């Protein structure tokens, strides 16, 4: 069975293995170094425990593990407040109408404005999963477990949520949007800038970003095509988020031009359709596969399993499920349909 739970220091090696296996496919915002990762896990633990409050830079890191086979098959994160106390940078796509009544012409001109508007919104990120699991129940579990966590700890999170989707890069690693824009100002390749943005304070972005708006028409054709476009490997991720109620708005990533998805937290499918139920042990009949989340704060656990509803508004699942969720019969859990 698959289980999503808060990351622990003992997961460090497993996460590192997972991330290094993924290198060259999709980048994650996870630190590469052992110290960096340990720090991140420690911060996550203090966030889950409530030691860090919502306004104190809560950052949650979840892991996906297979109960029987062991090992870490995926990680996913929530930043309680995008930017974590610093500005959260995006470009906002906007349009100006250049019109001349005299000459009888009117033209729509697309402009990128540097923006901090999304700062302090709850941000989903740090998502990485073993490639063979993409599109499976485990994939959906890992992604949506975060939303069940948010549903159960709603006052920790903001009313609006965002998620950054990785933008277009070539097979050879070039990032057209970066090469046409950011490279000129940062004087470094995309990988370096991406690494710094994970490692360093965001001061360098403030220092190096072009201070004025950018006319999209002056970017290379490849960069214009990449603007707001997701990396092809993220399409299933996007599909899942869209089903949840996220939509691509007018914000894009400053490095690769990838889209930023936005949603109203309380309108998300998982929050709307999930319900608290009593969990009882027993073989489910006429079963339905659902996401099940139990436990609060650091004790949070989430799995995907077959259940059946009972007449007294409780649900029945196998003993194994109760064990995975660390529940006793009669405990409250949160149930969301797939």
């Amino acid at each position: 069975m698959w289980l999503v739970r808060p990351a622990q220091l003992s997961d460090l090696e497993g996460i590192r293995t997972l991330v290094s296996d993924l290198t060259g496919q999709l980048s994650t915002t996870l630190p590469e170094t052992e110290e960096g990762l340990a720090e991140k896990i420690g911060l996550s633990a203090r966030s889950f425990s409530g030691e860090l409050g919502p306004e104190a830079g809560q950052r949650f890191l979840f892991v996906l593990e297979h109960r029987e086979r062991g090992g870490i098959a995926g990680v996913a994160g929530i930043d309680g407040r995008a930017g974590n106390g610093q500005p959260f940078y995006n470009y906002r796509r906007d349009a100006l109408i250049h019109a001349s009544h005299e000459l009888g012409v009117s033209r729509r001109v697309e402009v990128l404005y540097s923006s901090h508007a999304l700062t302090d919104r709850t941000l989903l990120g740090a998502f990485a999963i073993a490639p063979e699991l993409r599109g499976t129940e485990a994939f959906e579990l890992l992604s949506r477990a975060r939303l069940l966590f948010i549903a159960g700890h709603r006052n920790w999170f903001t009313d609006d949520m965002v998620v950054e989707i990785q933008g277009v890069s070539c097979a050879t690693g070039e990032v057209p949007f970066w090469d046409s824009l950011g490279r000129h100002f940062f004087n470094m390749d995309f990988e370096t800038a991406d690494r710094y943005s994970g490692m360093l304070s965001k001061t360098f972005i403030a220092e190096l970003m072009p201070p004025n708006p950018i006319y999209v028409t002056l970017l290379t054709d490849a960069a214009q095509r990449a603007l707001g476009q997701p990396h092809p490997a993220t399409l299933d991720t996007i599909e899942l988020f869209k089903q949840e109620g996220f939509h691509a708005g007018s914000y894009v990533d400053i490095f690769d031009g990838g889209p930023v998805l936005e949603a109203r937290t309380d309108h998300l499918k998982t929050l709307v359709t999930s319900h608290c139920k009593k969990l009882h042990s027993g073989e489910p009949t006429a079963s339905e596969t659902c996401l099940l989340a139990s436990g609060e704060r650091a004790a949070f656990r989430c799995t995907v399993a077959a259940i059946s509803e009972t007449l007294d508004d409780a649900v029945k699942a196998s003993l194994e499920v109760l064990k995975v969720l660390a529940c006793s019969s009669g405990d409250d859990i949160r149930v969301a349909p797939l």
Partner: protein
Amino acid sequence: MLVIRPLQERDLDDLLAMAQAAGKGLTTLPADRDLLQRKIQLTQDTFDQRCAPEAGLFLFALEDTELDRCVGISGIQARVGLDEVFYNYRVSTTVNASRELGVHVRTPTLHLTNDMTDTTEICSLLLSDSHRKGGNGLLLSRCRFMFLDDFRRHFSDKVFAEMRGVSDASGHSPLWDALGSRFFDMEFSEADYLSGVGRKSFIAELMPKYPIYLPLLPQRAREVIGQVHRNTEPALKMLQAEGFNFNGLVDIFDGGPVVEAFIHNIRTVRESVNRHVLVRHKPLDTGVPATERVMVSNRSFRDFRVTTVPALCVSSDTVSLPPEVAEALEVESGDLVRLAPLKDAGPALFAGDRRMTSSTAWHRAPHGAHSEPNGVERSTLDG
């Protein structure tokens, strides 16, 4: 004899023919009869002081008196940017630096400005192919500096010229193709024509207002910023020799440079001297080369005349003029005229004089010394 005088109604046909022959690229003088007629009218109103001083357009004709024909023109626009908006890009530098990362990046950037607003522009230099010799181009261009200095209160302290930028034989401008055309769906030649017929500010309204980071433009466009068209190089050299310098502004369409100078620093102004006319009936060899000629201005506002005479005519306190030259300049013996060398090196005699210009032995014309027509002494024009 070749004489500079204010442009007149009768020059219209000659002017139209010259504008047609010049083809594309002469932004301020499109071959449009009605437009040229309006310009002539404005010029006459300006010299007659029937229009507001800041709206003045001074167009000078180079008349070949034997042919009784206008063979070239040059102009001064008293002020730009007052009734329309006058745009340039300023070539500027943006620095982004991060101490933390040891990164320091300089990004050349174009900023849209109206910096030349309310400044005097010299413009519209055009010379017939048949007369491109013997310093005629110099006469057309430099006669304006004597006029500017003698009637300073009509002009700003600083004057500028917009130099034609780079375009290829088919009329394509690399900067327009990379920048302007992205915002305005039009060929450069068409945009250039619209500029000439007074609609440049309408096009400019459609141009980008935010700064343009040059690294976002292709190499071929970046290269031409601040560069002049090959045919304009001699004109640029001539202005540079007069003390004009690139002021960091470029044309928003083709990237051609703006050069400027303070009137009191212009070489022709600095090196000019005043002399009293002595009309002499002695025969004169007028066929001397340009290097040995000097410009003679009658210092009249309304009936401004300039021609050239051999430097030999100049003595320490008079200039000897044959009667026909005096007549062309509308001067008599005893009148004060202004002299300046036609060519950079100047005639030997005059070069000798020039060393003395700073001494008290030579009195430079004080500004406004010449009596002007009524109505010019407006306090609003001062300072």
